[in-house]
């Protein structure tokens, strides 16, 4: 089996910055935090987003505050862990690995997620596909 060539935290930060010049990245105690704005397409709103990642864990994304809203008060937003936390990928060793660049996976997946989120807000239907919680046990992160 091929060994995975883990990308170091500072290289991850560099890739995020070079692909997204408006993003601010900061590494503290091995935890990378990137903040920036995403507008997935011309009809979409612009969102403030936060990405957090530590080598050996799954990357996490947040859309803080009340930028994401359920259809009715107290309702659920599809494919989220929490109202501010979209689930971008099925946590398995094949869907995201530490040799992948956040800038080439997590950020575009978040753009895609936001696109489908807005379609869902507009029509009440989730068109983005995906896998449901509950069908699988939480898996160990691939590091």
């Amino acid at each position, binding site marked *: 089996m091929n060994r995975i060539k883990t990308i170091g935290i500072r290289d991850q930060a560099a890739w995020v910055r070079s692909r997204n010049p408006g993003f601010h990245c900061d590494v503290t105690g091995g935890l990378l935090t990137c903040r920036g704005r995403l507008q997935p397409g*011309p009809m979409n709103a612009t969102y403030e987003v936060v990405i957090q990642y530590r080598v050996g864990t799954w990357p996490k994304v947040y859309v803080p505050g009340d930028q994401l809203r359920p259809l009715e008060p107290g309702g659920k937003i599809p494919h989220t862990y929490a109202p501010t936390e979209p689930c971008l990928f099925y946590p398995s060793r094949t869907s995201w690995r530490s040799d992948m660049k956040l800038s080439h996976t997590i950020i575009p997946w978040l753009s895609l997620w936001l696109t489908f989120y807005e379609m869902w807000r507009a029509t009440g239907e989730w068109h983005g596909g995906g896998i449901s919680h509950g069908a699988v046990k939480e898996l160990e992160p691939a590091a």
Partner: protein
Amino acid sequence: MLLVEPQTHTALPSNRAEWLDRHLARVCILSELTAIQFRNAEEKYHAVGDWLAADGSSLAVFAPEVYPQGSMLLGTTVRPYGQSEYDLDLVCQLHWCAQQPPLTIYDWVHQRMAANETYLEMLEKLKRCLRLNYAGSFHLDILPACPNDRIGNGSIIVPDRKLECWKHSNPKGFAAWFLEQCRLRDQLAERMLKASVEPLPSAVPSEYKFPLQRIVQLMKRHRDIYFSGGRDIARSVILTTLAGRFYGGQRSLSLALEGVLDGIHFAMEATPTVPRVENPTHPGEDFADTWDQAKYERFKSYIRNFRTELKALLYPSLTEQRMGLEKSTERLGHLFGSDRVNDAIRIEANELNERRNGGKLGIAAGGVLTAISQAGSAAVPRNQFFGR
């Protein structure tokens, strides 16, 4: 039922007008005859023509000829709001018959149609035309007509509403004028038309549409919703004439529509009293001859409303922009009906998923989704959103 867009776009829309162009085209495609329905309707009316002209037909001596008029000829069909059946209008033109009273001609055509068992079962006598009901898909309204030899050039005479006298009409001439307007300022379209369609006006299947045809479809669709079946509903021929007159030839559908609505709006704001809407191929005939001040005001407010909504879609306020697709979809729903708009969004989502699954989705700097062919874009690997 979902339909596939005939046009394939390599790039994703990069501004609001481009997004609207595609969305509006999808709304039209969802509202019009599909290519299969179109060909089916064509076969049906050819068969009617053959039956009327067949040996042994009492009408054979008049050399009857059946051809489409109105939206089927112009390529501007729109399914009536809230209905599943299309209205398709046909002319049954006889020859050497202008000396007969309209009622006689109408009865002759009816007798011949009723002599066919299949037609008899679905035949319905309407005021001045005969209707064939093809349940669930469309009905064909057949209007008997005679040539108008005084004018020629495709001119015909048709019964008036009460079958008492003959009235001038020229559906072929009107279609020729309309297609001329379609091509007028669009060089590319002209080339396409030369390559694909005969130069004479002919029924245009749904795969080939000019922006002006789409504009008329959108105006009819919003008209159906705005007037919601009221008695003072604006006639399609008025919408078609005004759209043709004010079309500026913009390549973008949404910007061309904006131009048409601007043109009509400013012309009407400058005209406080009821104007004439002249038949471009028969000056002297006023399509708006049934308008009174109240109907005219209603028409003006329909145009004003359409224009305001479209401008807000193209040039949203900052607050609206922050509300994203949701607000735009709401406005589009007001204009064209939310069912149709939601279906168009579903088609857009399907396209996006096809790109995604085919490895053809890219991301440009700043997180903007784009096509993989675009310079500076990186391919987006496949993912599965997780969670309930």
